[in-house]
């Protein structure tokens, strides 16, 4: 029983870490709070669902198509809504303050667009649902796939930031945009790539989610909130701490619900969210990037 819970906690922790990673990239390098982030998870989930049920395409393939699709969407949002604004300091300052509201608008559009196109019915499909047992844990193949992909991406992102030159320029932009520009980092490009990568990661997470849960047009919002909880616990813009915080949330949620009942799940998540913001808006671990 305990092992099973532990496993469930690790799976949901890995998922939260992944979703939050995308949110953190966008906040870190653009200072935009993407409240539509969970809706990209929803888009990824629908892509995988329709590919699988209509065309018989495996979700493993959808991981790739979703990456391209969501990155392209990120690019579109960047070019149409953000580029001009980020370019001029006066406008950029206002944009930062307003980012949450802009993305809220986007979120409403995505949710209702999906509801219009696909109806509000919840949907699901079976993929890799054979159960494997080991060390007192029963897991479906899809859960293991989820864990593997999430681990690969988060660890890959950490290694990229630690060891690759481009990763350093990303860290530089996150830390201080103006200073990064002075030492020759192409800030605009880093920002564009960050938003594409952030959107793509959310989409990939959506594909993974679709294998293990029911999907609906309004499924994204809880992911947005969970990602915010994680990112705020870790400190906005602090990538590595955000990944650790993802696991903390996965554990707290899984064990919290196991100790009480499922009806307490949203109360637990929102409670943590409000508590973290009230007590330590600068993040639980380490220092957060200043919200300017």
């Amino acid at each position, binding site marked *: 029983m305990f092992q099973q819970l532990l496993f469930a906690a690790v799976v949901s922790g890995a998922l939260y870490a992944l979703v939050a990673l995308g949110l953190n990239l966008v906040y870190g390098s653009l200072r935009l*709070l993407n*409240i539509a982030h969970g809706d990209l998870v929803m888009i990824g989930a629908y892509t995988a669902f329709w590919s699988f049920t209509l065309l018989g395409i495996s979700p493993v393939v959808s991981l790739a198509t979703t990456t391209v699709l969501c990155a392209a969407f990120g690019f579109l949002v960047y070019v149409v*809504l953000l580029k001009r*604004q980020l370019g001029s300091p006066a406008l950029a300052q*206002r*944009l*930062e*303050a*307003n*980012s*949450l*509201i*802009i993305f*809220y*608008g*986007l*979120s*409403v*559009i995505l*949710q*209702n*667009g999906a*509801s*219009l196109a696909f109806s509000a019915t919840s949907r699901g499909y079976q993929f890799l649902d054979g159960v494997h047992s080991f060390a007192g844990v029963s897991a479906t193949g899809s859960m293991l796939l989820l864990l593997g992909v999430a681990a690969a991406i988060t660890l890959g992102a950490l290694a990229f930031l630690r060891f690759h030159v481009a990763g350093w320029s990303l860290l530089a932009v996150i830390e201080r945009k103006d200073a990064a520009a002075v030492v020759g980092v192409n800030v605009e490009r880093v920002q564009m790539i960050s938003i594409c990568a952030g959107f793509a990661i959310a989409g990939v997470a959506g594909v993974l989610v679709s294998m293990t849960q029911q999907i609906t047009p309004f499924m994204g919002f809880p992911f947005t*909130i969970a990602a*915010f909880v994680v990112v*705020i616990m870790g400190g906005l813009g602090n990538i590595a701490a955000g990944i650790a915080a993802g696991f903390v949330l996965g554990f707290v949620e899984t064990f919290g619900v196991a100790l009480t009942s499922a*009806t*307490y799940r*949203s*109360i637990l998540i*929102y*409670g943590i*969210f*409000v508590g973290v*913001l*009230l007590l330590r*808006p600068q993040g639980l671990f380490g220092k957060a990037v200043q*919200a300017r």
Partner: protein
Amino acid sequence: MTGKPFLIAAFAVVAGLLALVPQLGSEYWLGVAFIVAMWIALIQSWSLLSATTGYISLGHAVFYGIGAYVLVVSLDWMSVPYALALSGAAAGLLALVVGLPVLRVKGPYFVILTFGFAELVKNLVMLLETRLGQFSRMIFDAPSLEALYYAMLALAVIATALAAWTAQSRFGRGLAAIRENEVAAEAIGVPVTRLKLFAFVASAIIPGIVGGLLVLRTSYFAADQAFDPAVSFTIVTTAIVGGLGRVSGPLLGTLFLVILSELLWARFPQAYMMILGALLIVFILFVPQGLAGLVGRGLKR
């Protein structure tokens, strides 16, 4: 300054016309006018905090929902006017209790905090209702729509007058200083914490009563509907489309919203929400002064 008597006269004419709506004898138009008055009351109240101090609340549905809940529960013990007063008082009290910690959080953090807080309260009320074995509550023998309408119109007028008074008062100037730079405001003697709290409580009371009135109108309460985040979303969108920082902004925004909603909401609810989302983005990026700003510029020309 020369425009002021003109504006007051304009507002009085609008209020007077709205007061005559029941004379039309049309249930439909009375219902529309009720909704118009409701959004004006909500948005003017929201503006008291958010447009003046820049602390954008994305969770005003919480006050509206608490008002609705308190009304539906208290109606067992008291008559409607007392229950409505209690709705407003409960919303104000909630703002007073959570205000100090919540208002210490700034900028985008404040925005998401208000949102998360509203969802938390919604889930708590839903849990409480489930525990009490109540999935929804009905109200029998509510007052007539006409009576409810006059009450709502009164709230809209009070909220508008309050916004107009605040704009030129010492209180309003202090709030503007807070919006512009909190540290500097404190250094010139503005009691920042007290003023913010005051604005927060003031902006909560009327939405509480509005929530109570709406429940009386629909005769039905369910927690997930009463605390619907779409209410918060619509408040913010309408306020921004109308134009922040002008008393006429919420009026123009509401007019626009209600027309749009009458055309679309019943038949194409998703399309309606999508258009609202798009308007929010377009206005905040490209028309930050809102409809009121556009109209103001048009008049000058």
